[in-house]
Structures are given as C-alpha cells and as structure tokens.
C-alpha cells in the first residue's frame, strides 16, 4: 500500500507542474496587458511601463515563469495589484469559509444522494424510483446560481426564516480558532452563534450540494442495481435474511465502492461550484474573492487561487484513489502488476 501511495504521489508532481504552466500561460501569455485596467485608461505610457517593471511583467517569459514557480514553492504567490497584500494571506483568510461550505454541502449531498439512490434501486420502476430519477435529472440540469436565487426568494424573501447572505451575524463572529465557524462556536459552547452560523450556511450549502446529490443518487442507484443482481445477494435472500438487512449489509456495502470515488470527486468539483454559490450568497470565501478579482483583472490573485484550487483538487483525487485502493485490493494489485 505504501508503494502505491508513493507512486501516486510521484505521479501528482508532473500534473502539478503542468497545472502551473497552464495557469501561467492563461494569465500571462494569453491575457491582455493589465496595466491600463489597474492604472486606468488615462495613465501615461511612462507610468504604465514603470508599473510593469515593478511587477516584473517586462521580464522574459521564462524568467517570469521561474519567478512564479519558485515563489509558489516558497509560499509566495505574489501581491494583489490593488491591496498590495500577499495573495496567500488573502486566500488563507478566506479558505476556511470555502472549506466549511464545501464540507457541509458534500455531507448533505452524500447522505441524501446515497439514501435516494438506495431507495430508488430497491424500489425499481415504482413511482418512488421515478421521483428520485426526476429529482436527479433536474439536479444536474438546474444552474446552481438559479437554485440559489430560488431558495433566497422562497426562504428569505417570502418565508423570512433564513438569511439570504453572509456567514454569521458580525456581533456573534468567533475570534481565532480554526476559522470554521460551526466548529469554533460549537467548541466554545456559544450555541447562539452556532445556530446563527448554521442558519447562514443552510441555503448556500443546499444550493451547492444539489448537483453532487444528483450525481451521487444516479451512481448509487446504478451501482446498487448491479450488486442486487449478484449471486451473494441472492444467496443471502435464499438463506432467509430480512430484505432490509440484505439491502444494507450485503448490497450497499459493495455498491459503495464506486460511490465513494464519486463522492470524493464531487468534493473537488464543489470547489468550482463554490465560485457561483459564494457570489449568489455573498459568502466570503475563495470563490467570491476569485470572481471579484477576475472582474478587476487582479491577475496575481486569480493565478494564485487557481493554482491553490488545482492543488487541492489533485490532493483530493489522490486521497480518493488511495481510499479506493484500500477498499478494493484488486486496484492495488493491478497497478503493481502493471
């Protein structure tokens, strides 16, 4: 197993180097000159040149890439063109908000998705199955941001039961800790703040979870249908074991193998979806920060954030692969043989 993990880790290195090249090419080579955007259209040519010199944009492209990579390796992702604060500091300040949102969303998606998938498979071709299938189809077809808007209109505008934006009431904001407000407030025993943080996260997390929930439902249904036809399930039924026990202990356990992978991969894709959800709900995470920075052409921020998200994405994929290999030894052996 250790050999497999090391092999996967080594394979991740060229991928990350490639990602850094892609990000760099997009932001530095394909993009227009950011100087007029940052300094304004009326800035003089001298001022723009001086600004480009100061930001290293007049250096040869290979030198710029080398600076970018060496900086990234030492934790220096540059400074924001506007605030002049280090990009890494800005990203780390917002990182817990995105992580908290993604974790709550994946929990909602996994719990409801797996439950719906199991019910759908065990009640194949019944109205329940039809309803779950429709829900899954609508879930993958509905834009996250539109669902967010509908939830705001219903729960904040009409029913007035949940807040429409923000992360917590500023007066209740916990100081220090992990930055994960739900965890911090719970650990400090401040249940009023916990309830407030929980009420703020419900709508964005539900909106963000919908697509993943739909994918997990479809995957669980299909995987369960495969295992329900296996001989060992039929044998278990023939032995007189109760249907629910067979469904959960025999079929679902084995059906969960591919579902685990999908859940892990969805956690990664939630990071992409978070940009839209955070924008709709004014959630102060990395996603909203990236979108705001893109609109201002603050390239170091965009470059740093895309690289950070890609690194997290690669790590999640790696962890998913390792868990999968642990759960299913055939993967490990086939890799080793290959």
């Amino acid at each position, binding site marked *: 197993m250790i050999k497999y993990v090391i092999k996967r880790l080594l394979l991740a290195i060229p991928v990350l180097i490639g990602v850094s090249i892609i990000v760099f090419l997009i932001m530095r080579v394909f*993009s227009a000159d950011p100087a007029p955007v940052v300094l304004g259209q009326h800035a003089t040519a001298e001022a723009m040149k001086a600004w480009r010199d100061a930001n290293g944009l007049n250096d040869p492209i290979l030198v710029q890439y080398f600076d970018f990579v060496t900086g990234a390796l030492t934790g220096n992702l540059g400074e924001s063109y506007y605030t002049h604060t280090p990009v890494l500091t800005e990203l780390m300040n917002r990182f817990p908000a995105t992580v908290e949102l993604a974790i709550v969303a994946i929990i909602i998606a996994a719990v409801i998705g797996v439950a719906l998938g199991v019910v759908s498979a065990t009640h194949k071709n019944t109205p329940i199955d039809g309803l779950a299938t429709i829900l899954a189809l609508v879930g993958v077809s509905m834009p996250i941001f539109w669902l967010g808007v509908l939830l705001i209109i219903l729960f904040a505008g009409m029913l007035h039961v949940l807040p429409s934006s923000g992360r917590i009431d500023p007066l209740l904001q916990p100081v220090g800790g992990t930055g994960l407000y739900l965890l911090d407030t719970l650990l400090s025993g401040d249940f009023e703040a916990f309830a407030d943080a929980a009420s703020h996260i419900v709508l964005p997390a539900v909106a963000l979870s919908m697509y993943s929930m739909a994918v997990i439902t479809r995957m669980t249904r299909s995987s369960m249908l495969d295992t329900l036809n296996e001989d060992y399930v039929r044998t278990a039924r023939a032995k007189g074991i109760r249907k629910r026990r067979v469904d959960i202990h025999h079929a679902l356990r084995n059906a969960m193998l591919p579902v685990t992978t999908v859940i892990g991969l969805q956690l990664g894709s939630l*990071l992409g979806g978070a*940009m839209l959800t955070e924008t709709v709900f004014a959630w102060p995470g990395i996603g909203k920060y990236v979108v705001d920075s893109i609109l201002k052409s603050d390239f170091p921020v965009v470059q740093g954030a895309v690289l950070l998200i890609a690194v997290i994405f690669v790590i999640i994929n790696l962890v998913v692969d390792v868990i999968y290999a642990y759960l299913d030894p055939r993967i490990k052996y086939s890799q080793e043989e290959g």
Partner: protein
Amino acid sequence: MAAIATDTALNGQTPDAPETEERAAKKPESLWKDMWYSLCQNKPAMVSLFIIALLVVVAIVTAVAPGILPYDPYAQDLSASFEPPSAAHWFGTDQQGRDIFCRILIGSQISLTVGLLSVAISLAIGVTLGAVAGYKGGVIDTVIMRFMDMMLAIPSILLAIAFMAALGRGIDKAIIAIGFVSIPEYARIVRSQILAVKQSDYVAAARVIGDNDAIIIFRHVLPNVLPSIIVRATLGISSAILDAAALGFLGLGVQPPAAEWGDMLGRGRNYIFAAPYTMIFPGLAITVTVLAFNLLGDGIRDAFDPKARKR
C-alpha cells in the same frame, strides 16, 4: 420487411405467426435504425427532442425575421421598467423596460450557438487527440494524456473563467473557453474506445491491405466509436449551455445589450426581491433547455446500449 415476413408465412414456415410478422415488420435494418426505433419508444427523449427542435426553430426564426417578435428585445423604455408579468408582457420587463419573454426567445440563439459550437471545438480537437493517443500509444499517448490529466486537474468552470478573464468578454471567446476546457473528456472517451477496438480483426485487415494510420483511424476505427461520441456530445451541449450561463451570470459572458440567459439572470440579481421574475424566467429557460439535452443524451445512450435499455 413486411413483404419478407409475408412471403415466409406463405411458404408455410411460420404458419401461425402474426406476432412474428409484426416483429419482422418492425425489425430494424441497421444500428442507426435500431437506435432511432428505440429512441422513438422513449417518451421523455422524444419530448426533449421536440423541445430542442422548437428551440432551434425559435432561434432561426428570430434570427431571420426579428420583426416577428411583439417587442424589440434591445430597445430600452425606462417608463416601462419592472412591469410584472401581465397579458402585455408575459414574463414582465427588466430594469430597462425590455420585454423578458422576447429577450428569452432571442437568447435561444446565443445558448444554442455556444452549446453547439463549443462542443464542435472540443469534439474536433478532443476526438483527434484521443484517437491519435489511443491508436499510436507509447510516448505520444503518454504526452497527450498527461496533458489532458493536467487540464482535468483544474475544475472546468474555473478554467473557463480564467480563460474569459484573460481573453475578455464576448460570445466568440466564451465558445473558445468552454470548448477548450471540455477537450479532455472527449479525448479520454475516444482513447479508451480506440484501445478497445484497435486490436480487432478489421483493423488488422485494413493494415494488411495497406491503409495508412490516418485512413485506419478516421475511416475504420472512429465510425465504430461514434455512438459513444454522439452520447457524450449531446450531454456536452447541456454542460456547455450551463457553463455559458455561469459565465454570463458572473458578468464574463456576452457584451451588452446581447440577450443571454445567464447574463439576464445576473443582471436581475440586484432586484431579487423587488422583481424576482427578472431572474425566475431566464433560469427556467436554462433549466428546461439543459434538461432537454440531458434527457435526449440519456435516451440516445439507452438506445445504443441494450443493457441500459433493459433497466
């Protein structure tokens, strides 16, 4: 077919076979006819096909004869801003007094154009790369597929947003950005399919009669992996429409005053409580269109795959 069945019955081989005759009458002649026959049995897929056909007609008619619309979708009339849905304005009016229904109709042009052209770009490049990687193998395969892995390491919408940030706004740039980020999906599918068929006898036979690699790939191998490509492309159109809407929503899509559904949704954001209809109807248009392409894609996959059909 019916004639063949009748002849057989007359020859006395299947004397009591009205059922057989019926089956023979329906028996398809080729993979494509079989697929179409199965697709016709799939009601959700047929309804979706009808919706898509309707959208295509709307897009063409509004492009050829925009005067057919009751209101000019671009003309501002501030005295008519934020009118709620009524008999005069079915979906209400936006902040600039433009009729939302007319803007949604004309917006079908952009959504379908982005969906189809971006898929065409990713298909052309992805299929070629996947076919070459799968067929040639070795170093070429490794280089191409590692590059695809690198692209897949960045969430596609994030990559598309980064592209738009670099390239600037505009429908042409949105098409390029969305098309580019989807290339790895097609490359992977085609490569895996090519790997499965390249050892087949007919490929060996083609090589023996002297066909070169390009002819073998494009004339013999690719037609055999076409069903998978068609299914993925149909589903890809829905993803492309969603991505385009996301770019528009974030203010990175088309230039104003173009009517794009995601852009309309994004612009209504400041009036979410005062005029929710400015966001509800464009979102509904996106959802119905994407759902239609998803259902059609699922239907085509089921029609090509007998195992899935049984489910």
